[in-house]
């Protein structure tokens, strides 16, 4: 198991409740990945206001994504964003200029969501295992990113929208229902009048087609 995975599983990286502090959040050193050399489509140097403003749509989206994944109430997005933004702002000195700023913000958002969720879990007497932590920390961009992941991170929003529109109708409709509208498989099946298994197949193929288009786009850019 690589060092970064071990770090992902380290319970000590998650702080209790509101004591969670970006000061203690570090991007761990990983073999073969130097955060200074990560190419991004945004600036990784500047004041808090400059970088925060540029990244805000993606930070906001990460908040809604984590809230949805953790089964939290959607109306908590504003509170999570406020708390996470405060932590980031107050600990801006701990961000190393030139490193992967989006991952730094995402880590704070994920910790904030998890801490709020854990308070609910604790109230509900539900078990929170180390495995839950692995999932939550996994998504914050701290694992050595693959070339495909970096290509997905780099693609511009208008390009991604265009690719989504290029999906064949059946794939696009199923992907929209499940991924964008957050429907359960049975709900999407009823909406689209197809079996649930077909919904899953079409969503999978929709994602696969997008991945293929992104990879092809990246290859074309390299040729140029």
């Amino acid at each position, binding site marked *: *198991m*690589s060092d970064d*995975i071990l770090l*992902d*599983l380290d319970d000590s990286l998650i702080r209790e409740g509101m004591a969670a502090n970006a000061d203690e959040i570090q991007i761990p050193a990983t073999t073969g990945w130097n955060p200074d050399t990560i190419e991004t489509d945004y600036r990784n140097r500047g004041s808090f*206001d400059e970088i*925060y*403003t540029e990244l*805000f*749509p*993606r930070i*906001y*989206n*990460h908040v*809604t*994504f984590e809230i*949805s*994944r953790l*089964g939290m109430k959607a109306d908590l997005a504003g509170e999570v*964003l*406020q708390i996470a*933004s*405060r932590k980031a*702002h107050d600990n801006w000195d701990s961000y190393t200029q030139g490193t992967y700023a989006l991952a730094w913000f995402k880590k704070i958002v994920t910790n904030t969501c998890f801490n709020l969720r854990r308070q609910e879990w604790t109230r509900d007497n539900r078990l929170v*295992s180390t*495995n*839950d932590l*692995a*999932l939550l920390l*996994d*998504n914050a961009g701290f*694992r050595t*990113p*693959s070339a*495909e*992941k970096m290509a*997905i*991170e780099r*693609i511009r*929003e*208008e390009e*991604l*929208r265009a690719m*989504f529109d290029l999906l064949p109708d059946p794939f696009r409709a199923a*992907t*929209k229902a*499940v*991924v*964008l509208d*957050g429907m*359960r*498989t049975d709900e999407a099946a009823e909406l689209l009048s197809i079996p649930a298994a077909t919904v*899953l197949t079409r*969503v*999978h193929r929709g*994602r696969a087609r*997008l*991945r293929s288009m*992104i990879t092809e786009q990246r290859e074309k850019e390299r040729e140029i």
Partner: protein
Amino acid sequence: MDTNRDCGCASAFGRIEALVDGHLRTTETVDVIDHCASCESCAQELDIVSTLTERVKTACFNAPPAGMCDEILNSLKSNP
């Protein structure tokens, strides 16, 4: 006995999209996450599917409310 709880690569890999879409039951979720914690290729697949899903949502759906960024920045400055 739950015969669906095989969690080798084939099983986990096939459930990663369902996990990201929030469609797995708790036991299945734990199985897949357990597997990903010790399997680099499945963990990488989880990372890619999560990232793609998030980017698609951002691009196609999930713009923050207008003015929200400025409101938060102002509140950070006015309530140190």
